[in-house]
């Protein structure tokens, strides 16, 4: 087995080529090789969802994705959500509703919610709960997050 493998991937619209250990996780590539530290590690076993990113448009726990599976992939992380200084509808709504308290689950929560609104433009409370069930938050009790997702969905629908 090779000591290192070359990995090509597109993250937040930028192409990257990195040389990594064959067993490296996508999470490590993002955080350590690309220094995109917005994506967090909370458990390392796919339970908490703090490391959620979009991989070729699909929601994944990046702690469970071997980097080799991201060969040639398109990845979106929390750093890719805003348009320059302009927050995405979800980011703005999380800020307005206090949907982020300690903020550690927030990046993963934002990615899961982005995917949810894309799939389900006008979600009910229960649909949001279902869509975010893989993202644990210990601060909010989730109500302010539900409010934020509703506000963002309405704003997106009005565009």
């Amino acid at each position, binding site marked *: 087995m090779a000591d290192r493998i070359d990995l090509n991937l597109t993250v937040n619209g930028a192409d990257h080529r990195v040389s990594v*250990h064959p067993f490296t996780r996508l999470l490590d590539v993002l955080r350590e090789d690309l220094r995109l530290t917005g994506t*967090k590690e909370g458990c390392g076993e796919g339970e908490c969802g703090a490391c959620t990113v979009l991989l070729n448009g699909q929601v994944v726990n990046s702690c469970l994705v071997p980097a080799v599976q991201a060969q040639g992939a398109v990845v979106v992380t929390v750093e890719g959500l805003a348009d320059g200084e302009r927050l995405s509808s979800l980011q703005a709504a999380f*800020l307005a509703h206090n949907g*982020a308290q300690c903020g550690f689950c927030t990046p993963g929560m934002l990615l899961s919610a982005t995917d949810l609104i894309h799939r389900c433009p006008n979600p009910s409370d229960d649909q949001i709960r*279902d869509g975010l069930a893989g993202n644990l938050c210990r601060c909010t009790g989730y109500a302010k997050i539900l409010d934020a997702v509703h506000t963002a969905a309405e704003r997106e629908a009005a565009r």
Partner: protein
Amino acid sequence: MIGASSIRKEGRAKVLGTAIYTDDKFMSGALHGLTVRSEVPRGILRAIHFGEGIPWEEFTLVTAADIPGTNLVASVVDDQPFLVGIGEEITHSQQAVLLLAHADRHLAEKARRAVRLEIEELPAVLDIQSSLDLQPLIYGTSNLLKEIRIAKGDPDPIWAQAAHVIEGEYRTGAQEQMYIEPNAMLSVVEPKDGLLQVTVWGSLQCPYYVHGALKQLFGLPEKQVRVVAMEMGGAFGGKEDYPSVNGGHAALLAWKSGKPVRLIYDREEDLACTTKRHPSRTRLRTAFDADGNLLALEADFILDGGAYATLSPVVLSRGAVHAAGVYRCPHVRIHARAVATNTPPPGAFRGFGAPQSLFAMERHMDRCARKLGLDAVELRRKNFLRMGDTMATGQVIREDLDLAGLMDRALTAIGYRDKRAAFALTNPEDGPIKRGVGFSVFMHGCGFTGNGESHVASVAGVEGLADGTVAVLAASTEMGQGKNTVFAQIVAEALQLPVELVDTAPVDTDRVPNSGPTVASRSTMMVGRILEDAAIGFKQALVQQGFLAEPYTPETFQAAVAKAVAALGSLRCYGQYHRPPGLQWNDVTYQGDAYPTYSWACYAAEVAVDLDTYEVKVADFVAVQEVGRVVNPTLAAGQIEGGVAQGIGWGLWEEVTMQRGRMVNNQMTNYIIPTAMDLPRIQVVFLENAHAGGPGGAKGIGELPMDGPAPAVVNALENALGALRLDEVPMTPDRLLERCEEVTHG
């Protein structure tokens, strides 16, 4: 400013993913630190063996023999070593023995597994009763970490005379804080101007606790130690006392290696070895007259304190003071003990002893109502504390307290009467779903217990910056609760400025004074009050020095500050805690004003139990509280909602399973915290009764919501299922099944 839902100060960085938490801070050439721990609960460490196939010469290794200063973690009692040395006693299964560091994380992990500890095992104490029975003696002369007695009147003659005497025993389990960011530390130790300088950046609630611990560990003066609080991914007490341990470990590795060292726990290690909520056992005895008036109360309150004292003495103290609940009672005796066991030491967790004793009291009141044939609402109404009444410590209620009004508000909001009536009709029908509604009434003392605030004598201040804005100088940390925002609002209110002109200075012991630890629901009320004073002093100084004329606008104020900074260089004004007149406390007799004031609440829960699976769904939840003036309604509601979620989790699902003194479900997969699917929307109501001692009338808020949910939910379970032995939390499906079978099978 005060009373407005200002936007969270650091919120933008959090939603952008640019907020820097400890593990996000990059340091070139940093080593990865790891900890080798005992795997037996008690024994004598005889040797450390380093296995083959590891390039040990490349590693930095630290044992107890390397420690330059004192090998004891500075705490309430200095009894816990940073590392156990050869020939010394191991007292719990996660005891740290060896630290190692290497640049290659994978190799470091391989090396950890290659270390073998030779330990001569000794018999261990693993539960409360064995500790009380001295089977065997493991700590001091009595296995007691702390013992407290609180007495009012004399209950002894009452038991024989009273119409009813009711006894009960209640238990609560350990609970994990489960902050989403695991414990994390980063350290550099290097010479600066010829002197050793120890710096730790970390996920920590109390910079000056860690600062004190590092001074003692290295034997260094204040100036040579620096602690910086990074952005923190939740804490809930779990980063109150433990960071003195892992902060010390990171610094030892940095000192020995001469390189930056990261000590980032993975979730399994964090769950297995860091502090939890203390398990408890409470025995209550109450006497009532024929009308249901409470005549006497006796409480035997015991906490499992684990292997070292850590914060157990003060956790016990808060639990003991809250043990009599919110009821008027002429004769009270409280006996509280924290006992030593060979388990990893529990520590601070939101509520700090009060959730344990209040669970017992609020379950007991429902059981008493049932035994007395009275309604649980009316029994409480008859016995509530009111203005002028005296609590167990002799503290006189001086505020216009209306617990009955608070209770009625909560019961109306959840539809208590109608639901009780409806469920009484539907529950006897066939079908697996049984419904119930229940509630709890409780208080939480604001700030430290007793003389704590006087001992700390906190200092906080404000600083004018070159651009004319104002910075808050305090060691209080932001863990998600909203301290940055609330402090800015308090200072902005005092200075009559828009909140945008005030921000918080980095929490770095080189820059900010010791405003005390970020604990005990004390930051807004206690530190906020000091900041209010400091801000007013700051403004007066600007006026007296001729930089500012009143009345002023934000623009003229900003210009005045900029001009003053340019002229004077530095512009800081500090305030310090002063004990309000009239507050008295005796640490020996436990008599006096245990707290400057209390927050009060009634929480009501509706549950649906599925008797096919014994799963419990919380269908509705109402939280009504009186917390003085609310500084930021949106942030305050977030605190309540999050606290209620944690309280429901403790009541129903969150179980720490121990085997041989070791947590065996130390993964998020099998330690279950509430997800978005598991909770209803919580109705939060604030009744505002301004408190003279807090800034703008505020009281404490952070811990209160942890106290009420567990008893409210279990009381609702009793309404759904009838009189079962519902005396313990978490009331998991397994436990509930067992309790139901006790009734079925006798």
